[in-house]
């Protein structure tokens, strides 16, 4: 008897509290920034593609939903020729983001990805690339790596000396 009264009282109190439920999809809501939703490929602060096609995301992926092919441009910059994520397979575990050595692949707080056609869930590189650096604004892999690419010569990265000409006597 007493427990029934207590239950009714609790329900009564809750009726006056702030609503937790949201009228989705009419109403939106804010997800935390580290929510694991739709995967994107980010860009360097200077606008270049961050992905260097190292295949670590593909090997980390437990469901094998990432496919890519490495290639290089005429200046020696390594990038993916194609980069494909099959979101109908993706389980949003975030392992790819964890594996990525260049912060290129990131998960975003967005899950509005339903499609009528299953094939539309296969995202190509153009669909994945965003126009900014995502969660890591200042980072640029090519400024740390010793490899020469277009616009950055050997020895111009952080904490690197310019190549020395050993044949020269000039200081």
């Amino acid at each position, binding site marked *: 008897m007493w427990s029934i009264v207590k239950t009714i009282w609790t329900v009564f109190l809750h009726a006056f509290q702030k609503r937790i439920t949201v009228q989705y999809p009419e109403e939106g809501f804010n997800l935390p920034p580290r929510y694991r939703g739709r995967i994107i490929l980010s860009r360097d602060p200077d606008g270049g593609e961050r992905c*260097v*096609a*190292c*295949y*670590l995301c*593909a*090997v980390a992926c437990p469901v094998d939903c990432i496919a890519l*092919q*490495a*290639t*290089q441009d005429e200046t*020696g910059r*390594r990038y993916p020729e194609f980069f494909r994520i099959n979101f109908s397979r993706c389980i949003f575990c975030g392992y790819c983001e964890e594996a990525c*050595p*260049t912060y290129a692949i990131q998960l975003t707080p967005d899950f509005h990805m339903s499609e009528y056609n299953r094939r539309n869930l296969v995202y190509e590189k153009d669909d994945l690339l965003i126009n900014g650096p995502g969660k890591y604004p200042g980072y640029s*892999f090519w400024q*740390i*790596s*010793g*490899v*020469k690419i277009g616009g950055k010569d*050997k*020895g111009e*990265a952080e*904490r*690197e*000396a*310019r*190549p*020395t000409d*050993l044949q020269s006597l000039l200081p």
Partner: protein
Amino acid sequence: MADLVKLTIDGKALEVEPGTLVIDAAKRVGIEVPAFCYWEGLSLQAACRMCLVEVEKAPKLMTACTLPAAEGMVVRTETPQVAQARKSTLEFLLTNHPLDCPVCDAGGECELQDMVFRYGAGESRFQETKYHVEEKQWSPVVFFDRPRCILCFRCVRICDEGLGVRALGIVNRGVTSEIAPNRGDHLECDECGACIDICPVGALNSGIYRYRTRPWEMDHAGTICTHCSNGCKTTLGVRGGTRIIRGNNRDRSGINGEFLCIKGRYAYDFYNHPERLQSPLMRRNGKLEPVSWADALSAVARRFSETKERGGKFAVIGSNHTTNEENYYLQKFARQVLGTGNIDHHRTGDAAALREALQGAPGSLATVSDLYGRKAVLVIGAHLALEQPLLAFTLRANYRHHQARVYVVTEGPVREDKIAAVSVRAERGRELEALESLREPLRGEPELVILFSDAIQGEAVGKLVSFGRSLGIPVQYVCLLDYSNSRGAVDMGLVPGAGGLELDEMKAAQDIDVFWVVGANPFESGRPAAKDAFLVVQDLLPTETVQLADVVLPAASRYEKAGTVTSVTGEVQGFRAAVQVMGAKPDLEIIGLIGKQMGVAAGMGPWSPEAVFEEIRKTVPGYDLPPAVIAAGGAAQAVWSDGAAGGRRRTGTVRSDRNGLFASGTLGRYSKILHSVLESRLDGRS
């Protein structure tokens, strides 16, 4: 033999031969001592300091790679002190090492990466600027990035000692030391890629593999190189079952160990040459037009049956590239179904004559490991380093490790002169006379391996063998051949039977009705004399013979089929298919399908490689080899037993193509990589 030395490594007691290095002794009991500069078989460097171990009663840590095992030695390889030393060593190695791992091709198979993962030192305390040098391209296949180099000098030593080329050296000193190629800014060498393979980091990387994929993304298929006769195992990295990405032999399986020349490592690229035949062709109105397999096969079968019925004359020309199974099946088909003895292939060395001469002395054929272990070696008439790269490599290793005495009888100077005890120059055809001058020194040797090329053929082979017998010491022989299965072709019976025509006679005969060419290019320089003959060709690429053909059946290359081949030393090795190419079928299957169309398949037996190999084991003398060894990727030598050598011989029909390192008969013409290197244009031979 001296007494064994007893020592203890990490609590495990073991006995080793005196002089064994601690690092090797540890490996025997399953303890890995990490090392960058140490490489089994090369000289000692002790440059990297990774192999430091604790030895009881020694005041400091010792380098295991230079420390010979001593009686009562107690070694510990995993103490905190050792781990600390290795961590510090790694930290030093990383001071100038760039953070390129995500874009470096060695990523995933980098020894430095593995060691840092194991011992830490992931955080660098080095605050100064890193020393940097421009990346260089030394040749189409070799790139060098100095900052990644950890100066282990493995590449310098393998090139100098292993290959005998001496194309790499070290310039400058201290932090500015770097590896330098022999021509200042580019390499002029054998382009074998051994330096790339042996590099523990990504400093030397391959132009072919560069930025293509990752080691874990590939499937690895062990196959036997399809070019020269040495039978090196090349492990092909394949993606998606259709693309070969690279070739190497990192697991050191096969008779070649880690050795590969440019052909084994890079010249697989003929398989996707733009001109590769991928559909059967039939001549209609004077032009070769693509047709379906069914049409092509029925046309061939109809013509074969028709010619056989009216007693026409067949000529069957086999290949020295195809597998043992295919060769066996082809000659069986020709003999049983077509009823012809006109079977031959391009013979590049007189193995048949050697077989006859060795009657009554089985076990006189040397293997590659014999070549490494025997005390003396005699090379006759061949530039071994260019024509037989693995045998030359093994011989150099024998000289280096066992101080083998090498005798050379050749026409001109050869690279083996450098390691030879005696070099004799002899005109072609006069090698046997020159040999007499070596009789006395050879008599003093405890044992001997004789390698001879097509310079010794016909009756001369018999004379050579009796010369060998007259020395009074154990003598083993290798008859040098050109192509990957030349020896197998002889053993399987691709030689004319009694009354059969030889290759040259077939070409010259006026009355041949049907030519059947399987994987060969006999009409490279001129049409057959029989102008109206029906010409059936099975091949990969549009060779001169294919251009003349009436029916062309596209065949699968070595890398697209399974089977076994016999190397120049008679070692039989198996392989499996690495890739698939649309439209092409293995020759074995094509022959089987022709048989099926003719309605004779039942008598020929199944055309699966395993079934045919079973039959070969039962019927071909010397081929009763353990299938488990072959299937597991091992090599077993086919020993000629006594009995009819088969086929008649005539001198003058044996002719070697004398392919250098950058040529491989018709097949080599279709490898772009082989022709991309500078050396291939310098001169055809070196």
